[in-house]
C-alpha cells in the first residue's frame, strides 16, 4: 500500500517555465490538499479538493492552479515559475468528516532559478 505518492521528488526550473506536480493516493480518500513548506513558516495550504471535480483556494493560492479529474489524483500546476515559489511541496489526503488525519506524501523539492 503506497499511500500518497508525489512525483517528481526533485526539480529545478528556470524563471518563467511551467510544470505540473502529480499527487496520487490509493486510499480512496475524498479530500486532497497541496501545501508548501518554507523555513520558519510551517506548512501553508495552497489549494484543496473535497471530491473529484472540485477545487478550492487555500491560504496562498496565487501563481498556482490545480485539477482533480480523477478521485485518486490531484495535480498542482505552476504556469510561470518565479523564484518565490522555491519551496518543498507536500500533498496530503484524508477521508471526509471531522477529526480525520491527513496522510502526507514525502514532498517535492522545487528550486526556481
Amino acid at each position, binding site marked *: 500500500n503506497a499511500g*500518497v505518492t508525489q512525483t517528481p521528488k526533485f526539480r529545478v526550473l528556470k524563471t518563467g517555465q511551467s510544470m505540473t506536480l502529480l499527487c496520487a493516493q490509493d486510499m480512496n480518500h475524498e*479530500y486532497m*490538499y497541496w*501545501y508548501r513548506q518554507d523555513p*520558519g*513558516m*510551517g*506548512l*501553508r*495550504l495552497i489549494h*484543496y479538493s*473535497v471530491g473529484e471535480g472540485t477545487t*478550492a483556494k*487555500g*491560504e496562498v493560492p496565487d501563481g498556482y492552479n490545480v485539477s482533480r479529474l480523477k478521485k485518486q489524483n490531484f495535480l498542482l500546476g505552476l504556469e510561470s515559475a518565479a523564484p518565490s515559489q522555491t519551496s518543498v511541496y*507536500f500533498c*496530503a489526503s*484524508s477521508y*471526509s*468528516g*471531522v*477529526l*480525520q*488525519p*491527513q496522510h*502526507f*506524501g*514525502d*514532498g517535492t523539492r522545487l528550486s526556481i532559478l
Partner: protein
Amino acid sequence: TQLLEQSPQFLSIQEGENLTVYCNSSSVFSSLQWYRQEPGEGPVLLVTVVTGGEVKKLKRLTFQFGDARKDSSLHITAAQPGDTGLYLCADQETSGSRLTFGEGTQLTVNP
C-alpha cells in the same frame, strides 16, 4: 486569521532528558492535531485532541489540551535520538478538514 505560535522554535537536548514544547493560538481551536516530521518525509499524525483539559498519552509522549482550548503542550519523557524531528501543531476546521499549521519546534536529541 488564526495565528498558531509554537515554542521553542529549536530545542537541542541530551538523550534521557525530559522536555516540553508548546502551541498557542490566537483563537479557540476547533480541534488540535500534533504531527511529527522527519527529514525528507511528510508529517505523520501523532494525536488529535478535542476536549478542553484533555490529556492523551502515546508511550513517552504526553499531550495536554488547555481548558480554554487555546493552547496545548507536548511533553516527552526520557527523550531518545529517535524522537528527533520537527513537531507541528495544527488546527483542523470542521468543514473541509483544512489544517492551519504552526511553524513547528525542531527537536534534536543527542546520544
